[in-house]
């Protein structure tokens, strides 16, 4: 439900979604070399596959969104990855919609960029704490970024639904309510995975 289907949102929201997405994409593509393509594609495919994995959470089944994780791994380049993943998800699985690819990329991609900024600032801080070494800081800020990205995405979706019309008030409540467990799951996931990479393959984490 985080990817909104066709025909729900107000046209001006769809339009502004496309404008923002095209602008950020243009910027990200200018930063991207053709040599990056194979690696980015593998990560996009992995995000795509991982988002199909469902975890039973009490009565509901939740699936990963992984936007915070993509942001932490790729920085600005997470945006084209999410754009591709969402487009493919519509064409291969019919999740989401065509006209909503713009706004859906904003909903999922902008929080990814925010979580990247948090991760970069957080791990760059030179605060002396008891667990002050780099790996622990990475785990901590990875988890914060992962959880926050989902939270922001939910907030975006809810605000968009409610501004479209008061008919969608209940829908917004339902969407946010069913996704609250994912915030926790993604926070843990991003923390674990960043810690794993810090040990196993430190060069995978975005450093630019």
């Amino acid at each position, binding site marked *: 439900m985080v990817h909104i289907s066709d025909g729900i949102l107000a046209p001006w929201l*769809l339009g502004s979604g496309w404008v923002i997405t095209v602008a950020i994409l243009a910027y990200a593509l200018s930063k991207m070399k*053709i040599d990056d*393509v194979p*690696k980015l594609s593998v990560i*996009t495919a992995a995000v795509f596959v*991982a988002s199909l994995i469902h*975890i039973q959470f009490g009565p509901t089944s939740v699936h990963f969104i992984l936007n915070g994780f993509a942001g932490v791994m790729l920085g600005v380049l997470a945006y*084209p990855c999410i754009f*591709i993943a969402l487009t493919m998800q519509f064409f291969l699985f019919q999740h989401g*919609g065509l006209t909503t690819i713009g706004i859906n990329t904003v909903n999922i991609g902008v929080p990814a960029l925010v979580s990247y900024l948090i991760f970069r600032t957080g791990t760059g801080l030179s605060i002396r704490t008891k667990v002050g070494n780099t790996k622990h800081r990475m785990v901590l800020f990875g988890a914060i970024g992962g959880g926050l990205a989902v939270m922001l995405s939910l907030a975006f979706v809810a605000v968009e639904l409610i501004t479209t019309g008061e008919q969608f008030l209940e829908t917004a409540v339902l969407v946010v309510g069913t996704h609250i467990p994912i915030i926790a799951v993604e926070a843990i996931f991003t923390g674990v995975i960043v810690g794993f990479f810090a040990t196993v393959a430190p060069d995978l984490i975005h450093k630019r």
Partner: protein
Amino acid sequence: MISEIDRYAGLSSPIHRWDPRLRIISIIALIFSIVLLYDLSLIVISTIFAIILVYISKIPFSFILKRLKLVFLFVLPFFIIIPFTFTYTGVVIAHFGEIAVSYRGDESVLFAAMIVLKALTAVMLIFPMIGTSRIDITIKALEGLHLPNQLVQMFAFTYRYIFVLSDEFTRTERSLASRGFKRRTDMYTIVTISKSIAMLFVKSYERADRVFYAMRSKGYSGKIATLHEFNTRRQDWINTVVVLVFAIFLHVAAALEIFSTFGRSGGF
């Protein structure tokens, strides 16, 4: 886990023969035109138009219905959620303690029908749009439409890797299951799945490195090289004009309210 959208690309029909570049552009325009409609009777007309396109393309309806079922489950809740509300606006029909459920009126049912029908029609149209040519031809067509090269390349590679990685993850899952792992609602499940996804990333990242060097050494420079050539014939333009005229007609008819027997339903 993942089934191909281009399973019926090998058939022969007027839609299959239509130049993929023009086909993609015209059907995208049509989908946008339908999604921006707020008139139930015109939406019904465009659904019929979509069904005709699918019929011409000879893609079996059973294949499409299987995919539509998922979408339907996705949008079905709107029929229940939209007409009823917890705010005190419509006719109160039930009380649960402090909370009252009220019915918003018939208009909201029509509004929900509009949403569901628009979503289904949009999805139905992607089958004649990209289900009628092999995916590598479709990606070549995207290049022909002057999409940024990096994006086109990413589509091609990502499509390739989705299948590789989903197989890889299926193997990981099988090995987890053979050691007695079950998905539950606990920290252990989340951490274990997180770590297996992490391993999926590490493996695939290394694979991407190797693939990239192999491609470089064979002369890859970021261009798609297939033997397929596009040539646009008169019939291609006729198809394009028919679809685009229909897309424009929908909005002209909506503006003139020709078919608005139901009125402009919904809250807009």
